[in-house]
């Protein structure tokens, strides 16, 4: 039986009313804007299942927007996040939808600037304020947000993983887990690398310079 910290019992300190509908939703929003890392002027939230049914009563909409604005789960301004987004000129839309066979508390977040999509993220609030990111820009993956993550997509040619991990090692970042997936042989592959310590910002450019790399996304731990 594994040890359980008392702070998994006492806390988190959060804005009510529900750890899955507010604390978890806020983390999903924060993960999206942090991975996006660019200025944006609109965000669409596609709400599935229980999120779709009760988002207003639970304040899930406000929590998602608070996350997008970078607020933390215990920030009392969370209640007014919709107004704050408006003041910042960020247009937010909530669309009830069916995302298929996914967790009941799932949202698809689409971040845009001047009608150009900057990021698409699908994630679930899996209970107790914990989250699971299931998809980024169409690539299926599994990210808990508890560790810093580097997501790289590239054309599926030989030797790519060693080049990417080489760049990570040169930055003195230690790799915790590494998972590779691809749509089909020779097409676009995605590598998700969880690291022990956060990578420096320059790592994005360094990996992008590697031939055949298509995109690099970074998410620092959000818990």
């Amino acid at each position, binding site marked *: 039986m594994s040890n359980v910290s*008392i702070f998994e019992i006492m806390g988190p*300190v*959060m804005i*009510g*009313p529900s750890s899955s509908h507010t604390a978890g939703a806020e983390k999903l929003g924060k993960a999206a804007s942090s991975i996006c890392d660019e200025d944006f002027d609109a965000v669409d939230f596609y709400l599935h299942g229980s999120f779709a049914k009760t988002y207003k009563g639970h304040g899930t909409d406000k929590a998602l927007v608070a996350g997008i604005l970078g607020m933390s789960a215990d920030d009392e301004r969370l209640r007014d996040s919709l107004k704050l987004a408006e003041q910042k000129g960020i247009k937010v839309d909530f669309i009830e939808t069916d995302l298929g066979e996914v967790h009941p508390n799932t949202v698809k977040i689409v971040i845009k600037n001047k009608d150009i999509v900057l990021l698409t993220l699908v994630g679930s609030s899996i209970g107790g304020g914990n989250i699971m990111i299931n998809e980024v820009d169409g690539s299926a993956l599994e990210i808990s947000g508890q560790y810093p993550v580097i997501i790289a997509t590239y054309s599926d040619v030989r030797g790519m993983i060693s080049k990417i991990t080489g760049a990570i090692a040169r930055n003195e970042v230690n790799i915790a887990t590494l998972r590779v997936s691809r749509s089909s042989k020779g097409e676009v592959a995605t590598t998700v690398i969880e690291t022990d310590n956060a990578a420096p910002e320059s790592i994005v450019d360094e990996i992008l310079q590697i031939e055949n790399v298509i995109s690099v996304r970074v998410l620092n731990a959000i818990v």
Partner: protein
Amino acid sequence: MYNKAYELINETKENNCRISDIVLRNECKLMECSEEDVRSKIRKVLQVMKDAAQSGIDKETRSVSGLIGGNAVKADQYRKMNRTVCGDVVNRAIARALSTSEVNASMGRIAAMPTAGASGIVPAAVITAAETIDADEEAIIDALLTASGVGQLIKKNATISGAEGGCQAECGAGAAMAAAAIVELYGGTPEMALDAGAIALKSILGLVCDPVAGLVEVPCSKRNATGVVNAMACADMALAGIKSMIPFDEVVDAMYKIGKAMPAALRETSMGGLATTPTGETLRCRLIGKQ
């Protein structure tokens, strides 16, 4: 490390100390930090608990949906009339538990304990009990350590999620944690603390999770109020020397099995229980009509 209540009690005997001491030591080892680090982290959580337990009494607080609110104020005004059935102490605790629940439902800041839905019970219990015997903040921190230790046992051996085990796993766990904490605060032995926890959990075994319209409001808020009264009554019984015939560990196992046997309709899905009573349905339609 302790996985069972009897192990926790044995550790207190071997070290001639209280439950809170063992829980604190275990946390320091787990997080690789000092005792003061843990205490100062709890101090911050306690401040949030105190604020949430008071602000709903000071000011009428309504939920975002508008379904609940203002009951903490009512409870406290009634208490001040000095003609209550349960007496001043219990009514103070009731007002505090309602306050935290209302703050939670209004999208205010709370500390989950062990969840957001049941977050009113432990703070109301320890703050009120400490006030009654003039205990200082450090003693309240010890009580919170004990409460969390009991919560650890329930999480390890069963569940603290209403979706998995019904409300017995949330408000039941909260009441068991609170009961044990009060006993330690009042100088009871570790055995007495866990007897109190066992009796509190036994008293609400089988309680389903059936929130109206899926909101953490009805019946959650009042279950926090009765949860703290349950905890206080059980603490008094244990301090009087009354034992639980069924040991804590077995009560937790029973709770888990009952939770597993509960149909999904009675585990947070709002498809049964109070949620589907005629009034529950009417309220749901009204609120969803609003959306």
